[in-house]
């Protein structure tokens, strides 16, 4: 067995705590690190994701969701950004339940920062996936 192969950890051997930390980190950005006592990391990572998410809305951005009401190809195009948005966990779920942030009025779309807005919301989700994996790795003992 090569060195690289022997260094791999089977995902099934990761402790349940690691999965819990990963899920916590996904649900609330920064919580996965906070629960492990990594205050600095929680503040930096969670703070970056929260700032990204809030400023995305402040710039007039909107979240994506698969509605199925549009023509087939248009609906399918909503899936990749929706997966990105889903990375913000509870923030996306609360927005979805309350129906906040999914529609965009003409006034909102006319804002010069409209495109930046939904890009920031998308990036917030993608960055939180990285944070979630980091929290998982720390809890699994793969990282210090």
């Amino acid at each position: 067995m090569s060195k690289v192969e022997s260094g791999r950890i089977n995902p099934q051997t990761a402790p349940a705590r690691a999965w819990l930390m990963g899920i916590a980190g996904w649900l609330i950005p920064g919580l996965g690190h906070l629960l492990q006592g990594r205050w600095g990391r929680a503040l930096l990572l969670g703070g970056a994701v929260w700032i990204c998410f809030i400023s995305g809305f402040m710039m007039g951005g909107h979240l994506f969701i698969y509605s199925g009401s549009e023509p087939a190809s248009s609906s399918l195009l909503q899936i990749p950004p929706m997966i990105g948005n889903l990375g913000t966990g509870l923030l996306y779920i609360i927005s979805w339940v309350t129906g906040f942030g999914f529609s965009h009025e003409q006034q909102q779309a006319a804002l010069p920062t409209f495109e930046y807005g939904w890009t920031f919301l998308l990036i917030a989700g993608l960055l939180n996936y990285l944070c979630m994996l980091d929290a998982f790795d720390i809890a699994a003992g793969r990282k210090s």
Partner: protein
Amino acid sequence: MRHFLVMTAFAALSAVVFGTVAKDSNRERVVYGLKVFAEFMVIGLVLAWILYFIPY
């Protein structure tokens, strides 16, 4: 000016996350974060100038 500020904010936030999750020591993290920030900014400005000269 607004576009530049938004690009800077994007580069800074991304660099913070990339720098924090990568590398092992704090010094390496800071250096890597600054490198990522600089790369985002330089590539963004270069792309902006390239697109500026494309008339479509």
